[in-house]
């Protein structure tokens, strides 16, 4: 039967077109059209001519890259360790990863103010151990923002990576061992290559999410670590420059969709 099931999706389709697709199209229009002149790239020329925009773009890329690498460095050992746990311990570990995943990003970001602040846990501990005399400034700079972002995004890397790791057949590893391979060789030649597609997919996903981060840089950066989203906030809410905000949003959207396409390819490979 042709068109079967269309009636079920029609109500949502109408809502999505009106409240999602059309607004995004309108935004694209603002980025590329000038009243009475038609298609224009003028707003992009403005962007290229404004050094502050390029600096924020570079900032965003750098912070996103560092946060993603930190995620890999913390997340891979964590997922690998979880794979080797007993059934019960594994369930506890999964719950501890899933809970923050569902917890408000505001709560998780705010918590770092409490942990990293001048009178916070980390500085109290450092001073009690006599490692530092005064408090170290973690907040309101790139260090704090990067830590906060890595923390918020860690579950996005760990959960799919762990799912890929538990799919690896133990007998493969036993076979390598029975052929005389030492543990290090088994890890690098058998295990690691099998987890690589999932690791790459997870890292790409984390990177995409980093690029659009808004809340964490706003709170932990204290206005001193602007990322693309915070620049967009300024261009919309403070000095209304809708066309430029639309132009920047369009770049961010295209970059995100391109990386997402790469992610989808890797993810399919990882789940195959």
């Amino acid at each position, binding site marked *: 039967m042709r*068109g*079967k*099931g269309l009636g*079920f999706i029609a109500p*949502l*389709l109408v*809502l999505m077109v009106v*409240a*999602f697709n059309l*607004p*995004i199209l*309108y*935004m694209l229009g603002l980025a590329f059209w000038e009243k009475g002149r038609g298609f224009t790239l003028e707003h992009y020329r403005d962007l290229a001519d404004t050094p502050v925009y390029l600096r924020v773009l570079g900032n965003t890329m750098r912070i996103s890259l560092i946060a993603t690498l930190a995620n890999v460095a*913390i997340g891979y*050992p*964590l997922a*690998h*360790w979880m794979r*080797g746990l007993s059934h019960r311990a594994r369930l506890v*570990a*999964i719950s501890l*990863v*899933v*809970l*923050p995943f*569902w*917890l*408000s990003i*505001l*709560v*998780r*970001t705010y918590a770092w*103010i*409490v*942990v990293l602040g001048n*009178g916070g*846990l980390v500085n109290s501990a450092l001073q009690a151990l006599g490692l530092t005399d005064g408090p170290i400034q973690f907040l309101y700079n790139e260090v704090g923002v990067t830590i906060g972002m890595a*923390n918020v995004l*860690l*579950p996005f890397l*760990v*959960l*799919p990576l762990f799912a890929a790791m538990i799919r690896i057949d133990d007998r493969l590893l036993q076979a390598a061992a029975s052929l005389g391979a030492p*543990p290090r060789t088994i*890890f690098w030649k058998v295990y690691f290559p099998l987890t690589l597609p999932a690791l790459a997919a997870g890292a790409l996903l984390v990177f*995409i*999410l980093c690029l*659009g981060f*808004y809340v964490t840089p706003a*709170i932990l950066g204290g206005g001193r670590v602007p990322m693309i*989203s915070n620049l*967009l*906030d300024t261009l*919309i809410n403070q000095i209304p420059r809708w066309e430029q*905000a*639309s132009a920047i*949003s369009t770049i*961010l*959207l295209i970059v*995100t969709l391109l990386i997402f396409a790469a992610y989808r390819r890797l993810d399919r490979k990882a789940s195959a």
Partner: protein
Amino acid sequence: MTGSPWSRRLLAAAGVFGLVFLTVPIVIVIPMSFSSARALTFPPPGFSLRWYQAFFGDPRWMEAMATSTIVAVVSSLLALVLGGLAAYGLRRGSFRGRDLAEGNFMAPLIVPTIIVAIALYLGLARIGLLGSWLGLVVAHTVLNVPLVMMVLGVAIREFDLRIEQVAWSLGASWGHTIVKVVLPNLAPSVFAAWIFAFIGSFDEVIVTSFIAGKYETVPKKMFNELILEVNPTITAVATLLIALTVLALAAVSLILARTGRLQKTLV
């Protein structure tokens, strides 16, 4: 691949570090919310409930709480009904552009939220609905649809089509089949999807900050206060949100564990 005791110990240390890194901020906030001091020093110098009194005694916080709750209830139910119907149509139907439609419904999950926020801001400003209650509820619904579809998509795919076919062959209409056959069987997943959508809406901050106008929700107020100054009342709000999330996740896991869908939904 057991490795030497040393490498195993190292791995365990790295794993525990990862878990601590994930959970320590949450664990620290809870005792801080009972602190008697204004400064955020850890450990707190004394016990008090003053920050909870400050929260519950402040009519602006209570109003934000009411707005958040109403918006979350309405938008999560809308997302549940529209998303649930669409998930059913996508799984059971066959029509051209099905993958495209599904991709479009899931898109709010991938498109950076800031872009959704800006597009909606511009679009709503254009039609004069910026700062309206309708705009807020519709925006939350759009953002919650992917969560509903993820949970219900899996559940519907696993539900045996032949059971529905029996109902049809006995003369039941599509609508009758859904209400009397599909829904009762999928009730646990429907409940889980609703909880996820409710939390998604209750915690939403970016789009709300852009388009809500004079409406204050709990996350929006929290965000605005955090940017201005660090007010310990926020630790109490944060602890309440942690409690809400733990309760919701516990309810979902209890219900899904009985149907064996827990692992598939969470991981």
